[in-house]
């Protein structure tokens, strides 16, 4: 963070581990040798670092929009886009051109300024949140000490944007969508944050690189020491995973969009590039929330097997990201949507109690120092409520199995 460090040797600079930081280093070097003052070097470097993140994830957004369509198509016994370029690889480009050239419609009853601001506000916090994630050993765009807090703080801004979009459109379906979005996101933000608390307690830091560093090493020589491989971590990770699906407005919790019910929810009155911005914000948010889940529970950039130290760490991060996002796609292709009351009941009766229980479990685990005592206490402490809640909840969901008669005549 402190300007250009001339002591960086060329070997470190060109190591694969540092490739994602090359733009930043190059800009810093260039500015330094041009004789720019230190503050300018720092700012220039940070702009380059931010540019790297934005570039990587906008490419990721374009690819994901294609991969999602392809994956869903395969799940649904279709082929998916295959006209634009080989394997449909140019489809995102075509979509982008189409979106850019479409008419931008603002309804007469809309508050035009808020209507314009909402799509911007949904993209910006996602990019901000992406800025604090540790992607590799050497690649942390903005290494904040309170990274986790910052992440959640900017993450909540998307709710504001969604509500703004719904309200400012001056239309009924967006309004219904905005109402649903607010109730859903507020309800699911709670388990999301509560499940992260255990991680903070065990690692003793709010810094995301610190949390990843705490998960280094291997148990018994082959099990990675990730939080998800502890009883409280698995429980918190499950809560986090489910809540993050809801936070990202993904099926089966995509009620704010609720395509078959309220047309497109808060996006109904948007067209052209503003609509594309909503999609971008959604996908960037998906990247951010999956990235945070990986950082908190799946060991961030840590390698999954011992003896793989020579592979650049950011490759592990992005491999995990692909796996997590694929699981989101799979769920989307498989499940119908829940109803709003069921969604709320699930959050308040199942997820939040479990998220709360993981906090004492993490405390016990921490002071028992893991080991047999930790397992012996925390496993029953978490397993019993999970089983009880699941059975109880399933009973409510599926009240009866029906039998059918046949008429005699």
């Amino acid at each position: 963070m402190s300007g250009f460090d001339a002591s960086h040797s060329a070997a470190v600079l060109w190591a694969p581990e540092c490739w994602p930081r090359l733009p930043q280093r190059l800009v810093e070097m260039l500015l330094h040798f041009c004789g720019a003052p230190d503050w300018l070097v720092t700012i220039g470097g940070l702009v380059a670092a931010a540019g790297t993140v934005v570039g990587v994830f906008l490419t990721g957004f374009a690819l994901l929009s294609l991969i999602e369509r392809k994956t869903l198509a395969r799940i649904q016994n279709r082929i998916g886009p295959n006209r634009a370029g080989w394997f449909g690889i140019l489809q995102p480009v075509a979509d982008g051109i189409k979106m850019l050239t479409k008419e931008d419609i603002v309804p007469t009853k809309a508050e035009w300024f808020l209507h314009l601001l909402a799509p911007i506000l949904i993209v910006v916090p996602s990019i901000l949140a992406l800025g604090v994630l540790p992607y590799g050993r050497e690649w942390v765009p903005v290494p904040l000490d309170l990274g986790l807090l910052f992440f959640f703080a900017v993450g909540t801004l998307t709710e504001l944007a969604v509500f703004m979009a719904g309200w400012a459109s001056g239309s009924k379906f967006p309004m219904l969508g905005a109402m649903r979005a607010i109730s859903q996101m507020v309800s699911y933000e709670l388990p999301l944050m509560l499940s992260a608390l255990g991680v903070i307690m065990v690692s003793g830091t709010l810094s995301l690189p610190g949390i990843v560093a705490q998960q280094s090493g291997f148990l018994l020589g082959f099990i990675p020491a990730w939080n998800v491989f502890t009883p409280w971590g698995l429980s918190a990770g499950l809560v986090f995973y489910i809540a993050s699906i809801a936070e990202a407005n993904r099926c089966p919790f995509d009620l704010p969009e609720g395509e078959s019910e309220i047309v497109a929810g808060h996006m109904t009155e948007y067209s052209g590039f503003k609509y594309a911005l909503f999609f971008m914000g959604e996908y960037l948010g998906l990247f951010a929330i999956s990235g945070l889940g990986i950082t908190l529970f799946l060991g961030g950039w840590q390698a999954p097997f011992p003896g793989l130290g020579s592979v650049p760490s950011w490759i592990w991060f992005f491999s995990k990201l692909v796996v997590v996002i694929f699981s989101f796609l799979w769920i989307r292709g498989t499940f119908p949507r829940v109803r709003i009351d069921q969604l709320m009941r699930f959050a308040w009766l199942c997820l939040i109690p479990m998220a709360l229980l993981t906090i004492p479990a993490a405390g016990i685990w921490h002071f028992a120092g893991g080991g047999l005592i930790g397992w012996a206490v925390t496993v029953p402490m978490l397993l019993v409520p999970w089983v009880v809640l699941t059975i109880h909840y399933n009973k409510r969901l599926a009240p009866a199995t029906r039998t059918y008669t046949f008429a005699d005549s």
Partner: protein
Amino acid sequence: MISASSKSFDAAPMIESGPDDDSLLRVSLGPQHPSTHGVFRMNVVLDGETVVSLKPVFGYLHRNHEKIAEGITYLSSMPYTDRLDYICPLSNNWAYAHAVEKLAGLEVPERAQYLRVILAELTRLINHTAFAGFILGDMGAWGSALMYAFRERELILDLFEDLTGARMMANFMRFGGCRNDLPDGWAAQVSRLVDDYGPFLDEMEKLLVGNEILLARTQGIGSLSKETLVNGGISGPMLRAAGVNYDIRKVDPYGIYERFDFRIPLGATGDCYDRIMIRFLEMRESLKILQQALAQLPEGPVIDPKARIRNFKPPVGESYARIEGPKGELGFHLISDGTTKPYRYRIRPPSFINLTLIEDMCLGLDLADVVVILGSVDIVLGEVDR
């Protein structure tokens, strides 16, 4: 088109009798909405997301079908019946042919009778399979169930194409029989399809029926009392899901349905879940009918050689003929004045009449439930608006 006299005509009246309260939200679901199955419109008054009032608005797809049919010859209306319920054209063909045959007293040869049963039951398979896909789409599982349903539908449509030359607009039945005989190997293909259909239904049921979200979304939603359903004239799977034993194949047998051994599945509660399940069970019964019909299929002509195609003039009279269409009681009421054109041509469309009770089913439920209930009624707008 807009004349002075039509100025006062409001094609889309908003609710006048509904509760008048500023805290309520009036939403027009449709005519352009992702899950109205076409151009159907519901004027909904919402309190939060709870339905306070729901008024269906029909007629966006009105095509003047009945009046047009009165101006053309009897046979010319046959292709038009394809366009009523375009998911199952062959049932419509049969209902119309049945009505005209009743009017003119035509006999249908044995082979044609069997062929009609086979086609009608294949149509029922198409309809009920597509229904399962559509209702999952309404619940937000876009495409997944639908595409698998359509995969099977395609196989049946291929068979229809081999037989009739068209995949959907079949125009196959004639007064006194069917248009042409089977192509070579067609019956064998159908029996192969029937054999493969059971495993597909097993798979589909396993995927859908045990899903907790589907159970939670459909159970206890949209049920009405038997009395209301009967008084409302509801027919088809929707009525039988509530436990009313009323299947026209049994209560007023037509064609050769008495010869087959099949059962009528009955539900108990009549909610959306029962409606889905009843259709699955009905498909299995249809498979049984198909197996029997294919085994017994006799040789012979497919159309009565005496049936006159040209200058067809049924005697003066009146007839109402009904069949158990996939969606319910499909009836045609014809009045002949002895000329080549019907004096009156009237359709009793099951979709339309089943849809009339939509408000009673939806009151007090969520907006999300309205979509599922509408899906569970199983409508095709071509038939609702004619």
